[in-house]
């Protein structure tokens, strides 16, 4: 199963849920965790992996061979991102704008363009017991996280369950991380901010055709704003975690929910198993059809 943990609003508890599910499940089986929040990876504070490997991540960008170049300007014409400018007798490249699409190289009539790699970040990996943690970190000053997330996802072993800690929001980093998931857990909080951003996430997942359900964090008795929404939209609310200052204090130290209260272990394990069996049934039905 590929299970992603996402949220429109930042700070609702994605990493808390992802790490606690992974740690609970890892007592019984091996699994992978991908920390796709490459602008601010935090899963390693809770899943205390020994990082053995570090892979530098590169994005291609064009290098012009000025011996072959005739300054025809075709490369700048085809570039959708203004990453090349052709002057009378020189070509300027703007690597930070380059998306690595390869158009300039493909369409250069003189074959004067080579692609070289520029560093955008790093992917660390290692084990914490049965968990294989992949943690991606975008270099400071780099604008684009989707290429790094894409590279991380290519490292997934499809034979094993994987949990993805997804960046906040609903734009391209979130979409890149969630793409291809069997199920997404949307983590929210019972406030107008939480509900506003939850609706945006739900909209996005429906358009992406990824099944989802909701985890309510910082729940307070009497705060029904999310419950009402879930009932109205017929979206399963699969878990609630209460608002509790002790949870915030434990989190601040890198302690998990299951450290604070071991009874959460069975709740997270049960959630994971229920999702997995639901997906297996859905896949079996699909094959039958």
């Amino acid at each position, binding site marked *: 199963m590929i299970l992603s943990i996402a949220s429109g*609003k*930042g700070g609702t508890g994605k990493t808390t849920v992802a790490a606690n599910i992974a740690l609970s499940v890892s007592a019984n089986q091996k699994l992978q965790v991908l920390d796709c929040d490459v602008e601010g990876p935090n899963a390693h504070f809770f899943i205390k992996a020994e990082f053995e490997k570090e892979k530098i991540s590169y994005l291609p960008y064009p290098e012009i061979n000025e011996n072959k170049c005739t300054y025809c300007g075709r490369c700048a014409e085809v570039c959708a991102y203004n990453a090349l400018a052709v002057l009378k007798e020189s070509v300027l490249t703007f690597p930070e704008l380059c998306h690595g699409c390869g158009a300039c190289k493909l369409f250069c009539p003189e074959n004067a363009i080579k692609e070289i790699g520029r560093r955008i970040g790093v992917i660390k990996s290692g084990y914490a017991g049965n968990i294989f943690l992949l943690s991606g970190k975008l270099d400071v000053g780099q604008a684009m996280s989707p290429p790094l997330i894409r590279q991380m996802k290519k490292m997934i072993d499809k034979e094993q369950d994987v949990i993805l800690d997804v960046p*906040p*929001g*609903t*734009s391209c980093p979130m*979409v890149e991380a969630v*793409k291809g998931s069997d199920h997404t857990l949307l983590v929210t909080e019972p406030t107008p901010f939480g509900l506003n*951003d939850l609706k945006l996430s739900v909209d996005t997942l429906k358009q992406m055709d990824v099944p989802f359900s909701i985890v309510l964090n910082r729940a307070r008795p009497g705060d029904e704003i999310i419950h009402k929404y879930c009932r109205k939209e017929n979206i399963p609310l699969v878990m609630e975690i209460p608002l509790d200052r002790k949870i915030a204090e434990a*989190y601040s130290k890198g302690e998990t929910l299951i450290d604070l209260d071991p009874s959460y272990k069975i709740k997270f394990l049960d959630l994971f198993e229920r999702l997995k069996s639901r997906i297996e049934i859905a896949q079996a039905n699909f094959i039958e059809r």
Partner: protein
Amino acid sequence: MKQIVIISGKGGTGKTILTSAFASLAKNKALADCDVDAANLYLMVHPEIKETHSFTGGEKAIYDQEKCTYCGVCESLCRFDAIHSSEEGNISIDPFSCEGCRVCALSCPSQAIKMKPAVCGEWYVSQTKYGPFVHARLYPGEENSGKLVSVVREKAKKIAESNSLDWVLIDGPPGIGCPVIASLSGVNLAVAVTEPSLSAVHDMERVIETSKHFKVKTACIINKYDINKQNTQGIINWCHSNNVEFLGKISYSEEAIKAVTQGIPIPELPGSKLSNEIKKIWYNLINIDN
């Protein structure tokens, strides 16, 4: 006129709550919400929308099945995994994966793919009781958030200049990527709001590294400081060692939830304890150059 952006690195540290509090305390200002893919400031400042504009950022590839000869060149050249052919040979282009690079359209031998400008969001100019407010909505799953942020920034700046306002207060996005970089461009001060958790401190250091990378003067506020007083002191020490102005700290309090639930900025909540802490911070902020 001074432009101030509130950033954080980690989401959920209190950027929007603080921006709305400053909006309530500052005189003569314009507001901007640059968290374009999950905009929340409007829930605190209650705008009356005066202008709506559509935002076109980039292009998307559109497929014409009638012209297609199923040669498969497009799929083989797409680097973003956006083009897939089914067993029967039908091509589909995933608009969420398409980055508008044009490689498929340019290489298709039968012109079966065309590039169309993508309307991927909207932006608004509104009036609020705090002053003019520029905000936006990026449609779900879209890219070009940095471009839309730049549009919001540019408009807010123009409004402030033409109305001789003293401040542009900008609610920034989380992270360190292109929307944050666009929010930082040309501001007088970046204020990083953090909380004393390992995760938030780690991300605060990265976002401050980002603002320094772009040569922006940076200050810091600690929210929910009493969750972990040891880490709080660590952050204060780090600020002193790294040329980051420490503006002050705010207690953990359910008043923040009350403010958000009622849509009332904290300084306007009757009997608010946090209000005094925030007023001190605002005072430090406006006197930062002294």
